[in-house]
């Protein structure tokens, strides 16, 4: 990467080189974002098909691989329907708020050794802060569409996201206590001996489980998909959206699933760090030959598969069951877990 930096600096001068680099990184990030969305949509449809004893998409390309590309072209060509008596400014802004929050979070993931865009000293705190902005977009979308379905969907979604953020934050905090830092690169580096899920005894395993549940609820996907419960609310807060505006919500939903899985694999399963066992030097050496990007994406897609597995296996919860699960079960478990982890670190 340094040679690009050098070339730009010699031709453009410091300021413009910096701006050019920002633009280049942004383009690369958006490309990865869009391509990952296509892959995730294909994976979801295929896996869903297998769970329901169907074949899934199989017409476009070999094994239907090009299906989501075709869908993308279709959604780009679709008309944006004008909604009567809606607040158009907020209506349009909402989809951008959601996707911007999602991309800001996405940029902080460590994709591979060295491929890490935002690496603040407050890493985890940044992730939690930025991902909480998505709720504003959802509430805005629900209100500005001028429809009761979207409104109820948005209210449900807001309540759900705000509640489950607590559990997600607490379970990440457990790992922060174990590692003693919030910087993501530092957290990954500390797992070079052993991943935190093995290093952290029972509290780390518990935190992994609670984070998967809470994170899954944060992505608004089944069995927690009340905000868009089809049978009651048609499609929840994005009912009135069409064309690429709906595409933005769709994209953000899939990428949020990937982001949650990515954070889980970074915090608990070592991120891009290969699987190491202390003492087994030759084994560790062999593991190091596998590129770090393969490790990261492998672990992340494993977590994505867990999310899909849950989604297609469990029936939808009721809203009171959903909130009870968070406030009466998950949050107390997380708090006790936090104390347990502190005790383990101190003793």
């Amino acid at each position, binding site marked *: 990467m340094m040679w690009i930096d050098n070339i730009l600096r010699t031709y453009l001068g*410091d*300021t413009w080189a*910096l*701006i050019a680099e920002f633009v280049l990184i942004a383009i690369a990030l958006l490309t990865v974002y869009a391509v990952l969305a296509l892959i995730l949509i294909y994976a979801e449809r295929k896996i869903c098909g297998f769970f329901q004893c169907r074949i899934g998409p199989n017409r476009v390309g070999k094994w239907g691989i090009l299906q989501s590309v075709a869908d993308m072209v279709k959604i780009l060509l679709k008309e944006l329907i004008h909604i009567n008596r809606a*607040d158009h*400014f*907020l209506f349009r*802004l909402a989809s951008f708020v959601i996707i911007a929050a999602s991309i800001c979070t996405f940029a902080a993931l460590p994709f591979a050794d060295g491929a890490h865009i935002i690496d*603040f*000293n*407050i890493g985890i*705190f*940044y992730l*939690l*802060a*930025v991902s*909480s*902005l998505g*709720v*504003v977009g959802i*509430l*805005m979308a*629900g*209100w*500005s569409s*001028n429809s009761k379905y979207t*409104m109820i969907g*948005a*209210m449900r979604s*807001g309540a759900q996201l*705000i509640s489950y953020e607590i559990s997600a934050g607490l379970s990440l905090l457990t790992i922060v206590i174990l590692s003693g830092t*919030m910087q993501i690169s530092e957290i990954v580096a500390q797992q070079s001996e052993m991943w935190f899920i093995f290093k952290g005894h029972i509290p780390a395993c518990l935190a992994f489980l609670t984070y998967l549940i809470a994170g899954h609820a944060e992505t608004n996907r089944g069995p927690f998909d009340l905000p868009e419960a089809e049978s009651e609310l048609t499609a929840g807060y994005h009912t009135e959206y069409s064309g690429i505006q709906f595409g933005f919500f769709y994209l953000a939903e899939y990428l949020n699933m990937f982001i949650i899985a990515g954070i889980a694999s970074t915090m608990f399963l070592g991120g891009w760090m290969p699987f190491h066992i202390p003492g087994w030097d030759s084994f560790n050496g062999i593991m190091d030959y596998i590129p770090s990007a393969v490790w990261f994406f492998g672990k992340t897609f494993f977590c994505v598969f867990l999310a899909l597995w849950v989604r297609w296996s469990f029936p939808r919860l009721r809203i009171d069951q959903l909130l009870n699960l968070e406030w009466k079960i998950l949050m107390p478990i997380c708090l006790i877990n936090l104390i347990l982890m502190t005790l383990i670190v101190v003793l």
Partner: protein
Amino acid sequence: MGTTANLIAFYTLGTLIIVSSVLAVTSKRMLRAATYLLLVLLGTAGLYLLLNYHFLMGVQLSVYAGGILILFIFAILLTSAKGDKFEPRDKQKVIYGIVAALAGVAVTLFVTLKYKFLFPDNPTIAGDQEINMKVIGQALVGTEKYQYLLPFEILGILLLACAIGGILIARKR
């Protein structure tokens, strides 16, 4: 970061903050006013980011933009019907408002011009290194000079009292 790029970022954020704070006050629709307020808060977070004070940026985002503003929006959604607009302002209030705003500007200007800044020529230079989270944490719970254990504890008790008060008010009889 280069000085020019810093200045460009600063003026862009400043314009964003000023324009959207004026719009937040003048907008006729409640949820739009809240949205402009969100832009103001995001712009302020951007200023902290420019100063490399990442911790404050995170706090600004998660407390104001992600917490308080969502409470605002929830309150608006629960209490106001679609199409509710603000009542037309009466003239006297507008005049009082302008006077108060001018007084605020006067005080701020006076303080800003009077105070001796460390880097008066280039205010963005101070933020060239990142402020470590550990330093902030230890300053918050230390007992030595320039450490703030007592205020931190007092604020904690105040927050607890507020939370209990809130529960008492919201509790069903």
